[in-house]
């Protein structure tokens, strides 16, 4: 009798969560999508066919198409060369495929050198064409740089901004929320009022005001970390509110009092009894905080108050698509927008799935 009951409900807390999470198909798929995003970020220089800063003479070249048939013959996948023509009457330049040149797409080609993870020097790229030809599956930008390479490399910055920011959020939220819930009284009251104040500052204007104050001569790395700190300055309030309310609620639980009576130390109570009780909630709220940071970074950079070239992030790339003329004539410049939406959606679905899985009272 006892066995049949426990078999349905046995397993550690995390095993049970995983079992529940697996039923949430959308969240599971989102986890896969995010896996792809982070793999792209990790392998970016290898996956990108070119160096993201390598300029070419073909500015705003439209995306190459991959063909299989050349003059009626089946061939291995290839792209045509491109040529620049100018209209004799209007002098309008246009870039068109040059069907006399055939460049087969090759895998594991040697190309632009790069340093992977600050250590490994290499020039191996997943795919490319022989030198002399050019493959721009997502077209080129104003300086003739390969958009696909830039989109891939920018993924590195954009998806990690959220991670670093969330780490800062986590530390701030736990410390402040923990102090608020643990000490209570005056400290709690002061922290609550301070949080009210932070919530009263409209997020984007506040970010903009702080972003604008970053000195122009700062290094890329310094700007990057400052931006993550600025983003975290707003998001810790949500987490600290949760830590506080959970702490206040769990402190009164019978099992905590029992542990106290049994002579357990404060640390033991916090680590073995309290933390497992709300670790899952922390993970959920952190997961939902990451997409907000990604959106925040994108918005700030888009308006020129966040990351700046030569750093490439999705927001920096979208600066090129700032006016209507650019979007209507060179729609491929908008591609990073799709990356933003897909990535943020995936994080939101994942967070939703995790929330359902973490709630032990939800069947």
């Amino acid at each position, binding site marked *: 009798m006892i066995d049949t009951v426990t078999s349905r409900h046995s397993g550690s807390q995390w095993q049970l969560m995983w079992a529940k999470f697996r039923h949430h198909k959308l969240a599971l798929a989102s986890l896969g999508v995010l896996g792809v995003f982070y793999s792209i970020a990790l392998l970016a220089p290898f996956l990108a066919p070119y160096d993201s800063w390598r300029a070419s003479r073909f500015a705003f070249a439209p995306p190459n198409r991959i063909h299989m048939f050349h003059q009626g013959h089946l061939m291995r996948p290839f792209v045509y060369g491109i040529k620049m023509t100018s209209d004799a009457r209007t002098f309008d330049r246009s870039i068109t495929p040059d069907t006399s040149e055939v460049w087969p797409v090759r895998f594991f080609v040697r190309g632009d050198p790069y340093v992977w993870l600050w250590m490994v020097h290499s020039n191996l790229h997943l795919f490319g064409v022989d030198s002399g030809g050019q493959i721009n599956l997502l077209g080129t930008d104003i300086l003739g740089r390969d958009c696909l390479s830039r989109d891939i490399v920018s993924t590195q910055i954009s998806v990690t901004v959220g991670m670093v920011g969330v780490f800062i959020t986590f530390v701030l939220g736990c410390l402040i929320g923990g102090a608020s819930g643990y000490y209570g009284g005056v400290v709690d009251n002061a922290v609550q009022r301070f949080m009210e104040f932070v919530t009263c500052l409209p997020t984007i204007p506040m970010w903009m005001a702080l972003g*604008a104050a970053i000195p122009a001569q700062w290094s890329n790395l310094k700007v990057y970390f400052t931006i993550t700190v600025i983003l975290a300055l707003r998001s810790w309030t949500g987490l600290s509110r949760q830590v506080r309310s959970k702490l206040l609620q769990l402190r009164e639980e019978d099992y905590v009092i029992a542990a106290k009576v049994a002579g357990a130390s404060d640390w033991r109570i916090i680590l073995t009894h309290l933390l497992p009780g709300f670790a899952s909630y922390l993970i959920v709220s952190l997961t939902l905080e990451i997409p907000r940071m990604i959106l925040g970074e994108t918005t700030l950079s888009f308006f020129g108050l966040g990351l700046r070239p030569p750093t490439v992030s999705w927001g920096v790339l979208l600066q090129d698509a700032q006016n209507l003329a650019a979007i209507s004539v060179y729609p491929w410049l908008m591609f990073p927008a799709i990356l933003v939406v897909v990535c943020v959606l995936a994080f939101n679905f994942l967070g939703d799935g995790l929330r359902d899985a973490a709630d032990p009272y939800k069947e």
Partner: protein
Amino acid sequence: MARSGAAAVPLLRYVAKRLLWAAVVLVLVSFFAFLVIQLPPGDFLDSYVETLRRSGMSVDSATLVALRHAYGLDRPMVVQYWSWFSRFLQGDMGVSLLYVKKVNVLIMERLPWTLLVTTSSMVLMYVISIPIGIYAARRQYSLGDFAASLVAFTGMATPGFLLALVLMWLGYLIFGVSIGGLQSPQFIDQPWSWAAVKDLLWHLPVPLFVVAIAGMANLIRTMRGTLLDELGKQYVTVARAKGLEEGVLIRRYPVRAALNPIISSGGWLLAELFSGETVAGIVLGLPTLGPLMYRALLAEDMYLAASCVMIMSILTVIGFLVSDIVLAFTDPRIRLS
């Protein structure tokens, strides 16, 4: 009569307490705004001298010292803060170097438009998302619920500037004209007429939609979630068992309870709306406060930027106050605790 008088006392006490806190929060906000002024390297005079230099004039160092003294820039930070804040309270917000105008004049020009855009997008948000939230909760896991969630999530995931850009692009494709701004050029600075009002109504939908959508997603999900919780409670079952008609039942009890979190999020929503208004305003070229602040920040016109931050925060604080007071009216638990 006597009973309502007795009930009013805790309510009054509650309102007084909230007012006091609002004042404290405003002082904190003023610290932040002053920080915005102080953050960029150099002070007001440095940028002023730079502006003069660009236009070919020069200032000798003796004049500079005299000016710095006259403006009080050589005094301690606390004194500077106090002189700035006390003048701000009296409506003197300094001078904008960018526009060569008084800051309060610039802000007053744009405040009505800001209020128009934020309040009407707030109304739009409630009018659209509350019914959708109710529908989604009553028909959980139906096609409509799924569609609502999809729209809500996508709205949440799309950066506002992107939506504004895409809508502008679509408007450009379909109508062949730019739909930016709130008025056509021929109506700007003209006295109001029917044609001007019609023109304004024609321009409003896109900005309102862009501003509203981000918060809309959240509202729909909150409404759906809390209503689902309420619908599972026993009083609903009891009311159904007693034969109360479903529509009346839903409207009279669970919806009212589920509206409370929506009301309490009103102030927070206003802060979100200012964020949305800033982003939409910059992309769509609206005559609101957000773009003014943006341009001021880019030009390091710090008094203007700080005043914009200050005004937006004050409006948000007022929003929080109003939503707290409304909540105290609708939810007796708040005013009694």
